[in-house]
C-alpha cells in the first residue's frame, strides 16, 4: 500500500514523538539492569541494583502504597457523597463549589504546599505525621474522584431511578446505598484508579510537605537522583515504572469504560 505524502509526514512525526518518549525510558530500564552503565551492556545484566534499591528505599515504597490507599479511602468517603449532592443540585452554587475544590489541579502544588505549611506547619504533631502528606494528596486527587463520579451520575437517569426507589419505600440513605452507589460504580472505579495512580506519583506537594523520616516513592526518587549512582537511580525508576504502568493502563481502561456510559 502506498501512503500519500501527508500521511507519511504524519507517521514520521508520530514515530519521532514516540521515540522521544520511549528512548530515555528504555535507557533508564537498561541502566537499572546493567552491571556498569558506563561500560554499557557488555558489562552484563544484573538484579543487584534493584536489590540495593529495595534495601535503601523499601520504606518509601511502602509509605507511598499506604498513602495511596489511605488517600483512596478519604477521597471515596468525601468525594462520592459530595458528587451525589452536587449532581442533585446542579445550580451555580454547585458549579462554584466544584470549581473551588478543583483549584489544586490548576494551582501549582508548590503554592498549595506553601499555603498548608504556613497555616499548619507549626502544629508539630500534625506537621511531622504522615497525615500531613495525606492531606496534600487528598487535596490534589479529590477533584478527580468528584468529577469522575459526577460525570457518570449526570449521564444516568438518576432522578427516575431514585423516584422509583422512593415509591417502593426507600428513604434517602437507602436510595444512596442501593441505587446511587451501585450505578455510579464505573465512575467510582475510574476515579479510584486515578486517585491511586496520581497519589503514588505525586511529587510537587509531597516534596514540600515531607519530613526526613517520611519519604514517599517520588521523594525517594529525587533523593536517589541527587545522591546515588546512576544505576541505583535507574533501578529505582524501573521499580516506579513497574508500579505505575499497570495502574495507568487500568486507569485508562476504567476511564474509557466510564466515558462510554456517560456518552
Amino acid at each position: 500500500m502506498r501512503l500519500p505524502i501527508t500521511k507519511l509526514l504524519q507517521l514520521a512525526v508520530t514515530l519521532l514523538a514516540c521515540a522521544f518518549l520511549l528512548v530515555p525510558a528504555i535507557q533508564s530500564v537498561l541502566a537499572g539492569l546493567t552491571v556498569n552503565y558506563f561500560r554499557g551492556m557488555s558489562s552484563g545484566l544484573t538484579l543487584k541494583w534493584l536489590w540495593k534499591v529495595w534495601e535503601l528505599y523499601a520504606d518509601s515504597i511502602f509509605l507511598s502504597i499506604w498513602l495511596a490507599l489511605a488517600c483512596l479511602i478519604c477521597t471515596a468517603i468525601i468525594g462520592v457523597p459530595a458528587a451525589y449532592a452536587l449532581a442533585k443540585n446542579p445550580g451555580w452554587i454547585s458549579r462554584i463549589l466544584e470549581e473551588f475544590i478543583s483549584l489544586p489541579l490548576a494551582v501549582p502544588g508548590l503554592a498549595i504546599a506553601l499555603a498548608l505549611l504556613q497555616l499548619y506547619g507549626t502544629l508539630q504533631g500534625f506537621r511531622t505525621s504522615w497525615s500531613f502528606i495525606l492531606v496534600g494528596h487528598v487535596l490534589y486527587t479529590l477533584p478527580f474522584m468528584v468529577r469522575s463520579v459526577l460525570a457518570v451520575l449526570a449521564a444516568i437517569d438518576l432522578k427516575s431511578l431514585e423516584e422509583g426507589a422512593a415509591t417502593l419505600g426507600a428513604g434517602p440513605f437507602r436510595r444512596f446505598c442501593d441505587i446511587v452507589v451501585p450505578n455510579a460504580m464505573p465512575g467510582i472505579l475510574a476515579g479510584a484508579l486515578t486517585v491511586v495512580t496520581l497519589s503514588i506519583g505525586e511529587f510537587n506537594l509531597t516534596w514540600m510537605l515531607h519530613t526526613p523520616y517520611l519519604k514517599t516513592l517520588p521523594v525517594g526518587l529525587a533523593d536517589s537522583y541527587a545522591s546515588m549512582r546512576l544505576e541505583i537511580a535507574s533501578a529505582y525508576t524501573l521499580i516506579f515504572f513497574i508500579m505505575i504502568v499497570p495502574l495507568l493502563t487500568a486507569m485508562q481502561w476504567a476511564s474509557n469504560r466510564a466515558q462510554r456510559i456517560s456518552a
Partner: protein
Amino acid sequence: MQEGWTLPLLPSFSDMINRNFLLICLLPLLIFSLVFLALPLMRLFLASVEGESGWAIYLEIIQKPRYLSALIQTVLVSLAVTAAALMISTTAGLFLARNRFTGRGVLLSILTLPLAFPGVVIGFLIILLGGRQGLVNQLTPGHVVFAYSTFGLFLGYLYFSIPRVLLTVMAATEKLDRELEEAARSLGASPWSVIRDVILPGLAPSLVAAGAIAFATAMGAFGTAFTLATNIDVLPMVIYTEFTLSANIAMASALSIVLGLVTWALLLIARSLSGTTVAAGG
C-alpha cells in the same frame, strides 16, 4: 423570580429530609475544603502582604530584575513548549485518530504513558538523554550536554505536555463529524486541504484548550526543574529558593499567588472551551 432560585417557598417535611440528607452528603467535602484549602489559601494571601513591603510586594515582582526575568523566562519556555507540543501532538493525534493499523495501540500507549510520570522522573529521563553521561553525549563526537540548560527544561516540559495535548486533540477528533471530511473529499479536496479547511477549524476550540493546558502545566511545573537543578530561574524554582533558602516567605507567597492565578485562569478558559481538563501536575 430570581434566576437559580429553585427552593420552593415553603419546603414540606419530606423535602426537608431530602435536603438535610444532601447537606450531610456535602458536609465532609465542605469541612475538608474549608479547613485544608480555603483557610490555607487565605493564610497564603495574608502572608504575602504581611512582609515588610506590604502590598507593594506585588509591584516588586515586576520591579526587581531577578523576579521579572524569572517570570519572563517561565512564560517564554512555556510558550515554546506549548507551540511545540501543539504541533507534534496535533499531527500525531490526527494520524492516530483517523487511521487504523497494526501497532496503533502500541504507539498510543507510548504516547500517553508519561501522563502519570512525576516531574522528577521526567527530569531524570532528560538527564539520561542529554546529561553528562547521556545518550546524545555518548553517541556524538564532542561534548554535547543540554539537560541542565533551558533547552533541557524545554524538552522535559515537552515530555509531559505531549500526552496531555494528544489526549485532548484525539478526544476532539473523535467527536468531529466524519461526513464533513467526506463531503470535502467528494468536492475534490486533497488530504492536506481537508486538514487545513475542515479538521483544523473544527478542532480550533480544543486546540486552544489543549494549548492552555500545556502552558499552565509548564508554568507551574516544579519537579522537572528541581531534578535538572541548575541555574535556570523559572518561577517555581524561584518560589522554592525564596521559601527554603532565603526564608523570604512574603515573596514566596506573593509569587505563588501570581503563578496560581495565572494557571488557574488559563485552565478555566481551557475548560470553558473544551469541557474537560487533563490532569495538570508534573
